[in-house]
């Protein structure tokens, strides 16, 4: 795998490379019969940037992608690619590359014919077509499988071919619609890293839709968290995790303990401890505070709690505890500490800034 990757990188870059385009979605609204799927989405993607759209099912992330591709028309707003409004340009004229969630290789064509298809549609001569297709296949490490048919490939291989097919036309934007969700965990991670490598090599502007936050945080330059048809927050993975703008982001991205607290100026008091407030919070008064499990430690003294369950997660352990008032908290700690169910433990807080929202919002 590593060998293939290294070799592929060395050969592939020159012919396929293209500068990324800017993408701007301005107040994009999409109405289905009686239902507003997108409520005014604004999203700007810089040339060569890798942006992930993350959100729960039904939040509109795939609709955004399909609107950008042209597979869905929009009800209102503008979609600009390199400053050109493409909202009314049909999908086959938008010059985008797309990889779908479902396996979408043409079953009656060989792998090579699949990759050549987009070039044929652009009337590229046969010699260039073949050379570019072979190169694209080598880029994804499948140069030797050109004569096979889709049903002779594994799921991971099919998605690699789909990626090569999407990239061989040197599209302005690459759209990835949950391309890894049908794959098993190991292949998913491999292909995820490979997509990121290829995207970095080619510098192609990429929009990646996923509901898997680990996937989004691992590969994207920036992640746009969507909720109910709009972008709730967009930022680097670190920003989203450490500085969530809303309670939804705080609870959706990573694991957070939601507890009651009181906000007073720049500090929040909760669970008998005082925390600095992250960013700008709501008005002073009762709030819901979001404390990350890794910001709570097991100690010999501190807030007493009873262990409810403890899970081994490989490099760390996550333990759920119950406070005397019934509040349940997750604590993330060293894997060598193994609390038993029912054991009394003590908690301390490391004083990291926490996010807070008005209690009604939570």
């Amino acid at each position, binding site marked *: 795998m590593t060998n293939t990757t290294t070799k592929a990188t060395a050969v592939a870059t020159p012919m396929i490379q293209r500068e990324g385009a800017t993408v701007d979605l301005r107040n994009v609204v999409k109405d289905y019969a009686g239902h507003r799927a997108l409520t005014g989405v604004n999203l700007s993607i810089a040339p060569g940037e890798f942006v992930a759209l993350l959100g729960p099912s039904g939040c509109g992330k795939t609709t955004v992608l399909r609107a950008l591709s042209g*597979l869905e028309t929009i009800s209102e707003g503008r979609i600009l690619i390199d400053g050109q409004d493409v909202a009314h340009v049909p999908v086959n004229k938008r010059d985008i590359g797309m990889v779908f969630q479902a396996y*979408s*290789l043409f079953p009656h064509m060989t792998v090579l014919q699949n990759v050549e298809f987009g070039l044929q549609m652009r009337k590229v001569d046969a010699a260039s077509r073949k050379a570019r297709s072979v190169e694209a296949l080598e880029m994804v490490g499948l140069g030797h499988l050109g004569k096979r048919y889709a049903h002779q490939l594994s799921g991971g291989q099919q998605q690699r071919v789909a990626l090569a097919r999407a990239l061989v036309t040197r599209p302005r934007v690459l759209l990835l619609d949950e391309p890894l969700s049908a794959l098993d965990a190991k292949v998913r991670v491999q292909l995820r890293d490979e997509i990121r490598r290829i995207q970095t090599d080619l510098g192609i502007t990429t929009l990646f839709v996923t509901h898997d936050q680990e996937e989004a945080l691992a590969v994207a330059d920036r992640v746009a968290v969507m909720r109910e048809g709009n972008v709730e927050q967009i930022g680097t993975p670190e920003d989203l995790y450490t500085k969530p703008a809303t309670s939804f982001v705080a609870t959706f991205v990573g694991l957070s303990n939601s507890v009651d607290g009181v906000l007073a100026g720049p500090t929040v008091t909760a669970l008998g401890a005082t925390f600095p407030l992250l960013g700008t919070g709501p008005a002073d008064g009762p709030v819901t505070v979001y404390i990350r499990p890794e910001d709570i430690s097991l100690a010999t003294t501190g807030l007493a709690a009873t262990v409810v369950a403890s899970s081994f997660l490989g490099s760390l352990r996550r333990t759920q505890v119950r406070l005397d008032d019934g509040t349940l908290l997750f604590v993330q700690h060293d894997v060598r500490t193994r609390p038993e169910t029912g054991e009394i433990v003590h908690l301390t807080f490391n004083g990291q800034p926490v996010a807070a929202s008005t209690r009604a919002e939570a």
Partner: protein
Amino acid sequence: MSTVAAAAPIEHIDEHGNLLAPKLPKRPTRVGAVPSKATGTTILVITGIVFIIPLLAMVLFSLRVVGSKTAFTFDHYTAIFQPANELTYDGLFQGLVNSLGICAITVGIVLVLLLPTMLLVELRYPQLRRLLEFVCIIPITIPSIVLVVGFVPVYQVVSQIFGSYPWTLAFAIGVIVLPYAFRPIAANLAGVEVGILSEAGRSLGANWAQVLWRVILPNLRRGILSACFITIAVVLGEFTIASFASQNTFQTALLLLQQTDPYVGVIFALAALVFTFVILLIIGRFARDRKAS
């Protein structure tokens, strides 16, 4: 995963105290299980005999010398091609030509009307899938004679517009073949992600015509061919409508010929059966190919 717990094996110990392999309870015969090879062969032989005997009888009859029960000759076969008999068999050949013309038009109706409608429903209006299926299946539930009674006033209008030609029967037969043509195409459509493939094709720069021609139709080839072959088989076997519409088709001509020259009538009936059999074999071959792929 089965929800029915398997019966626990019963352990046995011999007189020396050794644990014997557990005796598994006898497994009951499953209903719907694949029959044994012997049973399958028996069924095949019996079914084969039931089909072969009438066909053999027809072959023997067609070879029989007129007035003899033991002498055989190929004279009836050669007589078909003798110029002297041209007038005798002209009606039959004309009927065959008419039927082939009706076949061509009916296949055209399937390809130009049914297929695009099914694709349109699949791609744009999937909510209408059930309705389309219902409409296409209806003709199979209505006896031909009832359809014919309904067609009579329609054909009075048709003959005023197009004239009273045999090929106009294709419109009526096009309705009758709907269930047979619909099914193989629907089965093929169900096995191909037409929506995803067309979106993939369009995202790669193909327009709708290119998507249809280069992506969708090649993947529906087996279903379309099966639909066409079944259509041809149905048209060649259709008698009721042609008879009531007083048109000369292969089947109506065959009936007339049967009354004047039963030997040649049987020869053509045999030829039609063999032709249909070959068509069904080809369809079966396509079905096997589809399963294999």
